[in-house]
């Protein structure tokens, strides 16, 4: 029983990442009808927001500390981060330590702007073009973004540790210990997903957007500037992907190709959940994450070797062939 619970828990953090990326992806698809292959790159940029903040906080100046000497008796140089100098050593150190969660505040405006610019500058011109063109141009954009990141941050993974307070393990249930940060990530994902749903469900803006998803033309005829709202939704989707990336850093050190790695999987998630269905994307994200962690157990890998590597694709193929609209998709979307 504990073993099963542990596997479910194990799957949750990966599932959260899948669900968040897929949520944004399907939001873009549902509103704008665009297949965005650059969405993984947005996830990666989010992760690098945390890296950037960590570096900014880490900026330091050197001073000579007379109290410390090396073995020759010369005074040693010590590095003091500006943040510690400004806010006092204790408070400054705390800020540095909390750079990953603080990056959320930094990432939201950055991702909104990136999403807005991307939609206005590029995606806008591709509404009328076939899906293959959309895939191709966003694939090109993904390559460009990835290379820019690689140029500025290098090709190696960059460690972005969680705050000390959240980096240990905790006892989730009697007998089950689990890394704190993964629990935090899951809770954060649930919060963000809940926030997006609440935003769409309970605000006038969300109501208009939902109406626009159902029938864009009629909403436009009612005198509402639906295009502007959809652009904002693109920004929101980018922000969701970015937030998923920001908090994912401590679980897996950010590197420049993490976007492409997640892209394929998140597309599979979207398709399994049903294109354009928001609850479907979330459900499929968690489902596939948990399935993957079950398939990684020694019991599963000894019974069917390699099952952990292929389980997601296998599920996707079976779903696509038996139920092409996905778990919760509407009929006739892109068939």
């Amino acid at each position, binding site marked *: 029983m504990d073993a099963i619970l542990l596997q479910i828990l194990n799957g949750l953090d990966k599932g959260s990442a899948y669900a968040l990326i897929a949520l944004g992806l399907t939001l873009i698809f549902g509103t704008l009808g665009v297949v965005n292959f650059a969405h993984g790159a947005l996830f990666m940029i989010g992760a690098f927001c945390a890296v950037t903040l960590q570096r900014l906080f880490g900026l330091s100046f050197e001073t000579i500390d007379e109290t410390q000497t090396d073995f020759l008796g010369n005074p040693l140089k010590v590095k003091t981060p500006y943040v510690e100098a400004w806010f006092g050593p204790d408070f400054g150190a705390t800020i540095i330590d909390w750079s990953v969660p603080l990056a959320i505040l930094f990432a939201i405006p950055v991702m909104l702007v990136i999403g807005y610019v991307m939609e206005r500058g590029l995606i806008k011109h591709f509404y009328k073009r076939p899906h293959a063109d959309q895939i191709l141009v966003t694939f090109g954009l993904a390559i460009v973004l990835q290379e820019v990141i690689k140029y500025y941050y290098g090709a190696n993974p960059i460690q972005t540790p969680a705050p000390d307070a959240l980096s240990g393990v905790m006892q989730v249930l009697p007998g089950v210990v689990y890394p704190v940060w993964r629990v935090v990530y899951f809770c954060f994902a649930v919060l963000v997903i809940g926030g997006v749903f609440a935003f769409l469900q309970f605000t006038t803006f969300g109501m208009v957007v939902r109406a626009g998803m159902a029938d864009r033309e009629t909403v436009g005829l009612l005198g509402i500037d639906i295009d502007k709202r959809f652009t904002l939704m693109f920004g929101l989707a980018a922000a969701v992907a970015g937030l998923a990336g920001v908090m994912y850093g401590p679980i897996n050190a950010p590197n420049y190709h993490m976007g492409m790695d997640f892209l394929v999987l998140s597309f599979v998630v979207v*398709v399994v959940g049903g294109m354009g269905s928001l609850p479907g994307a979330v459900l499929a994200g968690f489902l596939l994450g948990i399935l993957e962690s079950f398939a990684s157990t020694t019991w599963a890998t000894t019974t069917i070797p390699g099952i952990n590597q292929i389980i997601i694709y296998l599920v996707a193929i079976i779903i696509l*062939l038996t139920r092409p609209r996905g778990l919760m998709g509407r009929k006739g979307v892109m*068939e």
Partner: protein
Amino acid sequence: MFGLEKKDSLLLLIVAILTMCAPFILNPFPTDSGLAQFNAGYPDLMQRFVIFGIFAIGFNILFGLTGYLSFGHAAFLGVGSYSAVWMFKLLSMNIIPAIVLSVIIAGLFALVIGYVSLRRTGIYFSILTLAFAQMSFALAYSVLTPITNGETGLQLTLSDPRVLGVSATEDGSIPVTNLFGAEMRSAMDVAMGPWTFTFSVGYYVCAVAMLLAFYLSIRIFRSPFGMMLRAIKSNQTRMNYTGLNPRPYTLAAFVISGMYAGLAGGLMAAMDPLAGAERMQWTASGEVVLMTILGGAGTLIGPVLGAGLIKYFENIFSKINDNVLHGWFAFMPDGIEDFMVTLVHPFVGKGWHLTLGIMFMLVVIFLPGGLVEGGQRIGRMIRGRKARDAKSTATKPAE
């Protein structure tokens, strides 16, 4: 000529001349000059040009004609490579049986995947092929290690039981791949004045294979079968209403393009007898998509151009480092020189992928017909006035 129209046979002739004279054409700069690094006339690179040309020609038969965007074609390339290396290990070092086997196996593999994937269209088809390719990659990497040798990749060893031929040569090394005795890696250097031209057996074998592949693709493009594929691309629903089942045609196109990929994989293994799982990863499939689009999907010559361009970039552009850049801008004042170098630096050398990505985006946005369409536009501009009349009659790539 060979049952082709005048225009097509002219095209084939031009391509034939270009490929046969490639060692000259790709070596425009004298060996000792500073520009020699832009020479692409060495056997390794020329082989890659034509092999990826074959791969892209095959991909174009599926994507250019029927519009099915497959993101999993690298799987067939990988399967082709693996089967060719196994043939070298078990049967003989002659490349003919190896290539035949790789084409057949890749074709069978494509038949299975195509049969399943083609039940869906549009993005669902793309995702299905992607899923299959990633699955094959994962399997080749882990579970199928007895067949694929996992992450090390499949190589020849001294203890291979070659039925026709020897396990090891007399001096104790692994025999090399050959075509009835002509070794693939043997090459002849010809010095003419300051130039050095290299003629390699391997390149010419690949070039002949590409010419055959190109000829076959022209025949497919011009055949009723090709017309049918174009019809499927333009409106599948209408095809259904006229009582035609498009599935056999699309499946045939899928299998043919898979066999092309298998041929490319087999040739790759014939030139350098090893096969690894990386060849099957989805980014490798993305590369062939880039090649085809860049050159011009749906055109005859486009994929070959695209493949050549990308491989040239990958191998030549990536060699430009800061020293070379300083050499280029040396005539400028110091400050401006450094500025120019910093400006260009991200786009060359290790950053050539960035150039590729930007170029690709520009092509998709402004030139949906690829470089071929760009060439046509320039041609029309030069011809000036005629352009206005020509616009209506210009040959458009299949949509």
